[in-house]
């Protein structure tokens, strides 16, 4: 199971910010989220949304370990 974290407006849109999803890679994670909430899945692919796996930014595809933490980061506000 991967732990999925949403931040900022993505969490507001989804109505959750932290949940577990069974997925072995990012593509299957996105598909699993799209079945429940297609609008959210689309928002997660919007320009400016970055993805971190285990707190490291990744581009494109990524394999997820058994206890991977996947974070979707909307454009950052700065402090």
């Amino acid at each position, binding site marked *: 199971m991967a732990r999925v974290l949403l931040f900022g*407006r993505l969490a507001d849109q989804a109505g959750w910010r932290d949940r577990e999803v069974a997925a072995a890679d990012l593509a299957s994670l996105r598909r699993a989220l799209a079945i429940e909430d297609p609008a959210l899945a689309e928002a997660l692919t919007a320009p400016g949304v970055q993805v971190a796996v285990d*707190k490291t930014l990744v581009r494109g595809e990524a394999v997820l370990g058994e206890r991977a933490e996947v974070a979707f*980061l909307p*454009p*950052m*506000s*700065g*402090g």
Partner: protein
Amino acid sequence: MRVALTNAPFEPGALVTAFCAGRQETGAVATFVGLARAEAGAAAALELEAYPGFTERAIGEIVDQAVSRFGLQDVRVTHRVGRVEPGEAIVFVATAAAHRREAFEACDFLMDYLKSRAPFWKKEHGPEGARWIEPTDRDRTDAERWD
């Protein structure tokens, strides 16, 4: 610890005192304190969200850059997260160097980064509801001065 996130209000003066203590070879300490503005009633409060672990590491990388670029002896960044009321301190930056120019410039550099690129998500609560805030054009051009 050079970078700290805190949920609780902090007292900037106490952080300056602690940062200056016990220095024999530091000629200059520059500090910056950012406060939450009320915007004439438009901003009842700010809500700052960070990604614990990720946010500190990202700021830490910029702190490392500042240390090598300006030859700093020490740095401290303290940043609020959670709900911040108008008038409360949001961010504290202190830089220590042998001479003042490096301390001033490093403080300016760190704040430009923090305001434009640091991993925070900021929501403003006002009379007409809440809205997410993104960096202004001014924040971006300020940060580009150092590229």
